[in-house]
């Protein structure tokens, strides 16, 4: 199944809105590419956990894709804060190998899925699609 097919199955008029959080610009671009390929739209980009929290409540995205292996465990804290205030927040985390414990923690904090770096676009797309199955765009 091609990534672009998602929106064909659902209501095409409303696009899924994404918040991408990563301290590496390269990674953010990569993710944005996948999101757009799938017909989603990146509404905001953040480089730190703090920024992510602020931005989340400003733009209320459908999905957050966030690196948790950012310095000082910020990703995990941001995830906790976001989920604390919004029980329905959909967060997919990204993690480098070797941060498995953080990933497990994140899942227990309510992350919906995880993507491991190095980043593979097609795999990432599948995972995003899997998470989107359960949500309607523009909640």
């Amino acid at each position: 199944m091609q990534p672009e097919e998602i929106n064909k199955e659902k209501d095409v008029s409303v696009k899924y809105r994404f918040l991408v959080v990563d301290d590496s610009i390269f990674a953010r671009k990569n993710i944005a590419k996948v999101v757009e390929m799938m017909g989603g739209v990146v509404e905001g980009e953040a480089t730190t956990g703090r920024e992510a929290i602020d931005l989340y409540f400003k733009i209320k995205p459908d999905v957050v894709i966030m690196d948790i292996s950012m310095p000082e465990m910020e990703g995990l804290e941001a995830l906790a804060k976001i989920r604390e205030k919004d029980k329905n927040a959909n967060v997919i985390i990204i993690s480098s190998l070797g941060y498995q414990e953080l990933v497990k923690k994140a899942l227990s904090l309510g992350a919906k899925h995880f993507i491991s770096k190095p980043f593979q676009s097609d795999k990432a797309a599948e995972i995003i699609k899997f998470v989107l199955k359960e949500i309607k765009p523009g909640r």
Partner: protein
Amino acid sequence: MEDLSSLQLSEEDIKSLKETFYHQAVELVELLTQDVLLLEGSKDKGERLKTIKRIFHTLKGDSASIGLKGLSSLTHKAEDLLHAIESGLVEIDSDLTDILLNIADCVHEAIDKSLAGADTPHIPIMMKNIDSFLNERSGEHDKSDTNASSIFGEYQRLLLADYRKQGREVYNIRLSFSEDCHMKSAGVVLILQHLTGIGDIIRTSPPQDAKEIEYADAIEVVIASTMARNEIQKFCSIPGVVGNVTVEEFKEQDIAIIPKDLSPTQDSFVTQKTISPAATIRVESEKMDKIMDLVGELVIGRSMIAQLLLEFEERFPREEMLGRFASASSFVERSLSDLQRSVMNLRMMPIDKVFKRFPRVVRDLAKAGDKDIRLIIHGEDTEVDKGLVDVIGEPLIHIVRNAIDHGIETVEERNALGKDIQGTIFLEAYHQGNDIVIEVKDDGRGIDTKLIKEKAIEKGLISNDELEKISDDDAIDFIFLPGFSTAKVLSEVSGRGIGMDVVKTVVEGLRGGIKVKSELGVGTTFILRFPLTLAIIKAILFNVSNRLFAIPLVSVKEITRVFVKDISLVNNKEVLRLREKVIPLIRLERIVNIDRRGTRRDKLYVIVVNIEDRDIGIIVDRLVGEEELVIKSVVSHRLVNTSMIGGASILGNGQVVLILNPSAIVKKAGVRAIGNEQASVSA
């Protein structure tokens, strides 16, 4: 060792790292063996497996970091095996125990070679063995087509029945990890979170938090759900984590319930008490010996002061400072006694260190001899001198081996005799007075004294007349004579096989004694007795030919004064009639080859020593006194036959005293400690 040198460590650092590794690894392997042995009969197999795995894991990491690649790959492979066990692919049985023990042995060998920085050539062979074992076992597994691992507890079984009652279906879902899943345990968390949405999870294997998930190809989940099978199948495809999914109805007959009663092997090995690892430090024994030596020097210093004090008192009886001098001296004496006791305590360690080898020994031997044997260990925390721990293992193993090989009957024989088909070896240690006693008891066929007597006559050790007078207890002691016990008939029919004389020599070298009690058809007990400490002894000091000797007080029974005319000759040997008994006499100067010096006296002293329940007199010229001696070992020298010298000590006045080893003296003197002399004299 390239891994180490790249870190630019000094030679010394590397050496010390290696040593640290060595010491820790040796301990780990001991623990490993212990846990493996307990695994089969363990109630909580999961917990045991975890411990075993943790040990392999630690060894893997450590050996890799000091550059032992072979050992590190072997332990890695061992971890794979452990994983297979935990995931239920491999059943826990005695074959598994065997291979785990073999691995432990191989690891041990590798560790021994680690100080030289080499790996053992057996590693590749062992690794192959593990592979073929795994292949064999997983093959079996496929055939039997069990959905679940054999470990399914009572609780899960109850849950199962409950869910069925509610009309829910129970499924066994096998989810293989997709190739791109690089974080499997996180994947499992996700899978389980996902699955809780459709039902109640009864069991996950491997368990969610098990480390081996990282090496697993798949996990299996037993779940109760109202969903249909194909729906579940669909539901389980989680991208990035799950590859293939198979969903099957969970079959009742797949459940093997952990038996509630213990399997017969369970009590074969007594669970050892865990000693808290806290509050201990590791000290090289050499360092401790050094302290011991220094304390020894201080003890000598103390007696020097005491002696000086006496002289001082004689010379200046009215000196005012005398009282203060005396009290200072006694203060030093008291503190030193405390110090001595404390240091002595440092040398003490639980005999467990020796005993814990035995479950393995007994298991192996029982298996080899097709016997069913239970080992019961008591008093494993009895503290004994380190010197004893170091050397007592081999003799004990020898005794146990004999007990298993020749003492305990086969299952059929025992059955026919109406005995409990499971034989028992009883290993016990305890303190008695100032002694450590170690007992090895079996409930086997016992020693046939009749056969021993026959053999003794055949070997010309004893005449027919003498035989009459020998008690059964005495006859048994023939097994300790060199060469005697190799007698084929003995080892076949009743025997304590080969080399009991060696055992005896070792025991006596530790200033101990050994005794046997046996009842035909009921069993045999070996009783080994050792002094509490091997470093300081109380001894009687005496002169022979103006030379100073000492003999341990423990072996002295009495001291008596005799006239030369009281000594008579029997068979050209000197004997003494002492009250009702006639005892053989020994002249030390003939035995230790010293010139006869000093004047011949009419009156002599005889120190009566008791060696293995028999009295023998040593003729001495003069008694010097009783003293506490710090034993220093004597290095073998052509002038001294050290077997007869148990050690040496220095007295307060600087004089050197040789401490005799009574049993070696008796042996050397050719006094057969059988008792026939006594008998023939009185006859």
